[in-house]
């Protein structure tokens, strides 16, 4: 293979690439912009970061000690951003999507909840109005509400005035009851007398200010990555995904340019020279690989400098995955050139193909969100291996061994694409 010819082909393709301002912007600036956006959305909350608060409206129609304590507890919760509008305003706000959820505490809630606390009365209902597009937040708010309601009710029932009145009213009724089984009557009476003793202690005022029932455990969360110094950085994933998306677009464009070269008669010139078909395809593959590598490196360089993305796994592995991924993308461009009939038709089909590949490859959202069958099915998508390989070498912190399989599979895809392109390429001019 003639090195002079190969070098000239690569030089020419690079000159053409950098001469086209639109291509350069598409390859370098756009991936950075899009990946930065996706990264900010999917970056998750680090331990020292302020969590995103759920906007909730609370309407207290009760005004009891318990309902006021619930509202106060919700206002102090770091996960919520609480507003106290009127019910009509709250409904309108949820309807228009300005507020995720509205919690309505009905009149008599505190009294009924207190009685239900000891299991002797029906449970009162608390209304939650929610925006159906944000139903995932309902489960979170339900849990937070449970904690604050339990705290407020238990504090009042074990130390507040409402609790004392309730116990004094209930004890004679239980003792006189003919319907309760003797064992249950005895247990309830003993429990309420114990609570009464608690009320009558000299320092009861201080006790009343206690926290009430609270969650009997805390959670120690630990992010698991292969490397102890590695930490999840959403930007690492988004830059991998978007980098691959745009390098596939860039290479599809390179393939379309081959079709344009054919249309413009340039391939006649190339084919009339004493240059082998292998050299012509190799030249395109090498220039495509170089452009793809540049795209990835510029994107990751930006992510490393600006978003503190780190190659926590193996640098050699990262380079290997990047190279294999770039080679795969370059041969994908050749495939476009081989199978495309006209630049216009190829452009439409390849846009769809690239979008499908990157969507199924987990470039937009991580594949763990996919159903189990789809997670398996996407193993045949090269973009999946590229994203997984780059994730492994960056935030997952997996060593060189983690790069071997993605690299080999991407190289296999490159060989397949290259072989199909070589056999299907229209070498002869049509009439």
């Amino acid at each position, binding site marked *: 293979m*003639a090195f*002079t*010819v190969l*070098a*000239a*082909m690569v*030089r*020419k393709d690079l*000159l*053409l690439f950098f*001469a*086209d301002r639109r291509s350069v912007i598409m390859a370098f600036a756009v991936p950075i912009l899009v990946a930065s956006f996706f990264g900010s959305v999917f970056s998750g909350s680090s331990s020292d970061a302020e969590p995103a608060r759920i906007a909730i409206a609370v309407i207290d129609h009760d005004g009891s000690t318990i309902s006021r304590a619930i509202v106060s507890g919700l206002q102090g919760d770091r996960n919520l951003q609480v507003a106290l509008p009127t019910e009509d305003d709250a409904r309108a706000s949820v309807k228009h999507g300005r507020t995720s959820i509205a919690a309505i505490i009905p009149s008599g809630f505190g009294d009924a909840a207190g009685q239900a606390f000891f299991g002797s009365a029906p449970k009162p209902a608390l209304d939650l109005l929610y925006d159906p597009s944000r139903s995932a937040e309902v489960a979170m708010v339900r849990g937070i509400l449970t904690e604050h309601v339990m705290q407020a009710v238990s504090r009042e029932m074990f130390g507040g005035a409402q609790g004392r009145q309730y116990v004094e009213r209930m004890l004679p009724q239980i003792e006189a009851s003919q319907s309760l089984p003797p064992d249950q009557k005895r247990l309830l009476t003993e429990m309420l007398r114990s609570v009464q003793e608690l009320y009558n202690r000299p320092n009861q005022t201080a006790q009343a200010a206690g926290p009430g029932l609270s969650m009997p455990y805390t959670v120690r969360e630990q992010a698991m990555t292969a490397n102890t110094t590695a930490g999840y950085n959403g930007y690492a994933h988004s830059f991998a995904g978007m980098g691959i998306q745009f390098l596939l677009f860039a290479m599809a464009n390179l393939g379309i340019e081959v079709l344009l070269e054919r249309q*413009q*008669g*340039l391939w*006649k*010139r*190339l*084919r*009339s*020279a*004493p*240059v*082998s*078909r292998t050299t012509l395809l190799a030249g395109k593959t090498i220039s495509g690989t170089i452009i793809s590598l540049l795209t990835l490196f510029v994107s990751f360089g930006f992510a490393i400098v600006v978003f503190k993305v780190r190659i926590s796994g193996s640098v050699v592995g990262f380079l290997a995955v990047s190279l294999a991924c770039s080679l795969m993308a370059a041969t994908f461009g050749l495939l476009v050139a081989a199978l495309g009939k006209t630049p216009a038709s190829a452009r439409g089909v390849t846009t769809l193909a690239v979008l499908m590949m990157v969507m199924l490859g987990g470039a937009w959202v991580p594949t763990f969100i996919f159903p189990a069958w789809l997670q398996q099915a996407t193993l045949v998508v090269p973009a999946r291996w590229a994203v997984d390989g780059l994730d492994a070498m960056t935030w997952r912190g997996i060593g060189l061994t983690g790069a071997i399989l993605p690299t080999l599979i991407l190289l296999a895809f490159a060989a397949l694409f290259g072989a199909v392109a070589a056999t299907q390429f229209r070498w*002869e*001019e*049509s*009439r």
Partner: protein
Amino acid sequence: MLTINNLRKTFGSLVAVDDVSFSLERGQLVGLLGPNGAGKTTTVSIIAGLITPDRGEVLIAGQRLAGDTDPAKGRIGLVPQDLALYDDLSARDNLRFFGALYELRGRALEERTANALALVGLADRVGDKVKTFSGGMKRRLNLAAGLLHDPDILLLDEPTVGVDPQSRNAIFDNLETLKQRGKALLYTTHYMEEAERLADRIVVIDHGKVIADDTLAGLTGRALAVGGQRPTLESVFLTLTGRSLRD
């Protein structure tokens, strides 16, 4: 220098080139004339190695042209009908690239580039991007790209399409110069006056077959013998190929 023997090429049921034979000598310009779809471009494409013939052979100085990488292809220069140039590259970068396809590099490439640009009168626009060139300038650069590697045979497929009279005249001058330098030129055209001015011999092709191969004097002489009044090449051409529209 160039010998074409019994070329035949079909595309499905269409016979594009049918038993075409002719030859071309050093310092000679042969005009290849024919109506649209006659088989001129297919013939040129076969000679340039772009299309494999079903039958027949192309000989360069007696050697059969074989395969993509046959060094004999370096003795042929192609000036395609299309403006086969990279618009976003400068004239120099275009020629550097096309020269490298023939293994030219370093000083030799620079000298050839400068000479070719000087020949076609574009030496002062060497650094300008092709997209800033006029149609005539692009045609001249197209010619320069074809003769950059100093081929013995130049295949010119309608090289003056869409150019102004000044550029056309400049191209004619270039071709005269090349002829004087001993190059063998095969020139396809629709313009009879171009063939009249340039061609030493004229090959008329129609429906894929060679229907005449003679000098201008020979062709017009034959018509003179039949009709009595000295005809133009165009009238001879129409007599040979008929007046029915081909498009």
